[in-house]
C-alpha cells in the first residue's frame, strides 16, 4: 500500500461514514482540482456512482471554461448538480470587480453568503435537468445539514486545525478552540438538532499528492491548470478578477507533478496567486469563521 493508496482509502472511509450518518448531505464542488479529486473519490467510495448532490456556488466571475467543464462532467457522470448564487448582490453590482466593495467583502457576499443561503434552502437553488441539459429551480428546499468540503490542511494555517468531521453552529460559526476528539476511525457523527457539519475527506492530502493522484487515476481537470502556449497557467482556480496565473510552461499533468515535486514550485505556497489571502494578516481565517471554505 503506497501513500496514495493510504490517502485514498482514508478519504473513501470518511465519505462512506458521512453518507451513512447524514441524511441531508451534499458535496461542494468548486470545479478546482481538489474538489474534483474529491468527486472522483466519491465515485470510488460508491463504486462508480455519486449518490450525493453536488453544490456549486457560482459567483458569475468564474472563468467560463470552468462552467463548461462543470456541465460536461455533470452530464457525463450523471451528477445531481445544484447551483447557488447571490443574485441580489450581482444585480445591484455590489461586487469587487464593479469597484463597489473590497475583495474580502466580495468573497463574503458572493461566496460565504451565497453558500449559507444555498445550503439552508432559503435562496432558490438551480438543479440540472439531465433530460434537457438546462438548470431549473429546484423544488426541494430542504436544508443541507452535512456539507463535504475539499479543504487540505497544508493550504494555510486555519485549515491545518480542522477535524475530518467539524461541527458548525446555526450561524456556521466554527469554535476552533473546542473541537471534538477524533480517534481510531471514530469521528463525531452525533449532533444536536440544528448543528451543521463540515466533512473534510482531503485533510491529509498535499497539493503534490493531488496531482500525483490525478496523474495515476487519469482524472479529467480543467485545462486552465496547464500552459496553453502563453507561458502561464493557473495553479489555483478562483474568480477571474482575483486569481492570477503563475509563470509556468507545464503543459500537462506529468509536467505539473514534476514542477511541484522538485521544480520551481516545490517551495512556494499554492495560494500565492490568491489576492484575498493578502488583504490582512488573518483575512482567510476571518472569512472561514464566517463560513468561507
Amino acid at each position: 500500500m503506497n501513500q496514495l493508496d493510504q490517502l485514498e482509502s482514508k478519504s473513501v472511509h470518511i465519505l462512506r461514514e458521512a453518507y451513512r450518518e447524514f441524511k441531508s448531505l451534499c458535496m461542494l464542488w468548486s470545479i478546482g482540482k481538489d474538489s474534483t479529486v474529491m468527486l472522483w473519490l466519491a465515485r470510488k467510495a460508491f463504486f462508480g456512482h455519486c449518490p450525493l448532490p453536488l453544490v456549486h456556488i457560482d459567483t458569475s466571475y468564474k472563468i467560463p471554461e470552468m462552467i463548461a467543464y462543470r456541465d460536461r462532467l455533470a452530464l457525463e457522470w450523471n451528477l445531481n448538480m445544484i447551483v447557488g448564487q447571490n443574485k441580489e448582490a450581482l444585480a445591484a453590482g455590489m461586487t469587487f470587480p464593479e469597484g463597489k466593495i473590497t475583495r474580502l467583502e466580495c468573497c463574503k457576499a458572493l461566496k460565504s453568503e451565497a453558500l449559507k443561503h444555498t445550503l439552508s434552502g432559503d435562496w432558490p437553488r438551480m438543479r440540472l435537468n439531465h433530460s434537457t441539459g438546462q438548470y431549473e429551480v429546484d423544488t426541494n428546499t430542504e436544508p443541507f445539514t452535512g456539507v463535504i468540503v475539499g479543504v487540505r490542511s497544508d493550504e494555510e494555517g486555519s485549515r491545518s486545525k480542522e477535524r475530518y468531521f467539524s461541527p458548525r453552529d446555526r450561524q456556521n460559526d466554527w469554535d476552533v478552540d473546542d473541537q471534538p476528539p477524533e480517534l481510531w476511525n471514530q469521528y463525531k457523527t452525533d449532533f444536536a438538532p440544528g448543528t451543521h457539519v463540515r466533512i473534510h475527506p482531503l485533510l491529509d492530502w498535499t497539493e503534490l499528492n493531488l496531482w500525483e493522484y490525478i496523474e495515476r487515476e487519469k482524472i479529467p481537470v480543467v485545462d486552465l491548470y496547464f500552459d496553453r502556449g502563453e507561458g502561464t497557467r493557473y495553479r489555483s482556480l478562483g474568480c477571474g478578477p482575483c486569481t492570477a496565473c503563475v509563470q509556468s510552461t507545464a503543459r500537462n499533468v506529468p509536467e505539473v507533478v514534476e514542477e511541484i515535486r522538485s521544480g520551481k514550485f516545490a517551495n512556494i505556497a499554492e495560494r500565492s496567486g490568491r489576492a484575498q489571502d493578502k488583504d490582512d494578516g488573518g483575512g482567510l481565517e476571518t472569512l472561514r469563521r464566517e463560513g468561507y471554505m
Partner: protein
Amino acid sequence: MSTITKVEKEHMDVVIVGHVDHGKSTVIGRLMADTGSLPEGKLEQVKAMCARNARPFEYAFLLDALKNEQAQGITIDTARCFFKTARRHYIINDAPGHIEFLKNMVTGAARAEAALLVIDAHEGVQENSKRHGYMVSMLGLKQLAVLVNKMDLVDYSEARFESIKAEYLAFLEQLGVHPAAFIPVSAREGVNIAASSEKEMPWYDGKTVLEQVDAFNKIRGDETRPFRMPVQDIYKFTAAGDDRRIVAGTVLTGIVRAGDPVRFLPSGKESTVKTVEAFNATERTEAVAGYATGLTLTTQIYIKPGELMVRADEPQPRVSRRFRVNMFWMGRPPMVKGKPYKLKVGSAAVSAELAEIIQVLDASELTSVQNKQQVERHDVAECILETVRPIAFDLRNEIEATGRVVIVDDFEIAGAGVILEALDESGSVMAEHIRAREFSWERGPVTQEERSARFHNVGKLIILHGVYGCGKRRVAKQLERRLFDRGHKTYYFGISNYFEELDHDVRTRDRGREEHLERLGDLARVITDEGTLLITTVTDADDYDLERLKLMTSPNEIFVVNLGENPFDNYPIDVALPYRPDMDEALDTIIGKLRDNGVLHK
C-alpha cells in the same frame, strides 16, 4: 514527459507531546526550518512581523497561524505541519500541552505512528510529561523518542540530562514502554535537531531528532492477522441501473479473497465472497488490510451496517455484552452508572452503560484511586461496560484495531478505551434490573385469574413486525377492533410512528431506538399485567431486540407477528404473514394462534 525516475517517498504521521511550555512548537518550527520545509518567504515574514512588534523571533511563531494563538502565545488545537527529509514526508501533529486540551492531544496522538515527547531540561519531568506518556502508550503508539529540550538553559549539563532520563525511564518501564531514544536538544539554538551537538554536548553520541525520526519504522498494514472488516454500509444503487449488492468497509487486518467463507458478527450469518469490487481499477480478487473496499457475496443474506465481517476459517473474535476496558474520560460531565451512553466499536454503535468501576488510575503517578463511584474528566479508569446488545470485538492485545471503543455522551465523544477482557453475562445490569423490579412488584387484591375470567384473555404484548410499508399498522388497528368487538381487553399503542419519525433523520438504526424499546418494555410490563392485549408495531428489529422486549415484559412475555421476509435467525416468531397480507386471513390467523396459545379463551 519528465525523464526523472519517480522515487516515491514514504509518508509518516508523527505526534509531538509534552507539558506546556516545554518547547514543542519550537521543535516543530526548527524541524520545518532546518529541513527547508517552509514555504518560501515564510521565515522572513514571521521575522519581519516580530521586528515590527519589537519582540524577539521564536521558531514557535511559525506555527501560530491563527490570530488568537498569536495573542495568547499557546497552541490550542492540533496543528498539522508538513516537513520532509531525504527519506520521508512527515505530517507532524502538534498536540497542545494544556490539560484542558487533552482531547486535542488524544486526536493528534491517535493519528500518529510515532511520538516525540518533549521534556524541559530546566523544569524536569512534569505531571503532563507522565500523563502524555501514559496516553501515548494506551493509544497504542509503540514508537517513542524523548527529547530533553532547553539544554542551553542548563549549560548542556550531562548530569542534568542523565537524571531526567533515569527518572522518566523508570516511569515508562512501569507502562512497559521502551523508548527508541533519549535526545538532549536545544530547539531554540538548533542543537541536535538537524545539526549534531558535537560542540555543545560532546558527551552525546546518539542520533539527532531528524535521524531518529527517519529511523522510526513504518507501520505496515497488518496482513498476517485474521481478517477483520467492520461493515460500514451495504450499497445497492438499483436506481442507477446497478444490481450489485456491495458490502462496503475498510479492512483493518488480514486479507480476504474471492471464494473465502465469511461470517458476520454478532448475527453469525455466513456466506462466501463472490467478488472484490472497485471503481477505475484493474480487476482484483483480494482485499488487504488498509484498503477501503467493497465485496459481493454469493448468497443474498440480510446483514446490517455495524457487523464485523470475519473469515469463517480463521480465529474468531469475541461476542459479548459485558467486557472489561481500560479507558480515559474527556467529557465534562463525569461517566456515571445507570446512564445510557452510546458505545462505538468498529462500525457498530450500541447503547451501553457503566456497570462497574474496578479502579481509577492517577495517570501521572500510576497509583490507583479506590472506591470512586464515577469516572471524572481526565480520569483513567479500569471498568466494566455493558451493552444492550452483543458486540463483536477482539482483545486489544490480540488485534488492536478491533479492540478499541469510544463512548459518546450527549453527542460528544467523551471516552475512549481498549478492551482487556470479555466477560460472561451473568449479573448483567438488565437482568439485575428485572430481578429487582420483580422482587419488589406489589399487587392489589385482584388476582390474575379474576382479570382473565372477566376479559377472556391474559395480558400480552402483541408485536406486529415488518419493513416499512408491509401493512403492519393496518393489521394492528384492525386487530384491536376485532378483539375489542369480541369483548377482549385490548389497546392499540401507536407510539412507534413517533419514534420512526425521530429515527428518520439518520441512516443508522441505533439512535433513540434502544430507548424506545426500553420504554415500550417497561410500559408493556404494567399494561399486560393489568390484563390488556397491548398491540404495537415495530420496524427493523432483530433477535436481540425481541429477546430484550420479552425479558422486559416478563413474566407476561410477548407475541410476535412478522409480515414479509423473516429477518430473525433464532427468535421463534408466533405468526408468519406475507408482505401486505389479506386483512381477513391475517386476522383469522393471528386470532387462531392467540387462541391456540391460550392467550384468548372464549
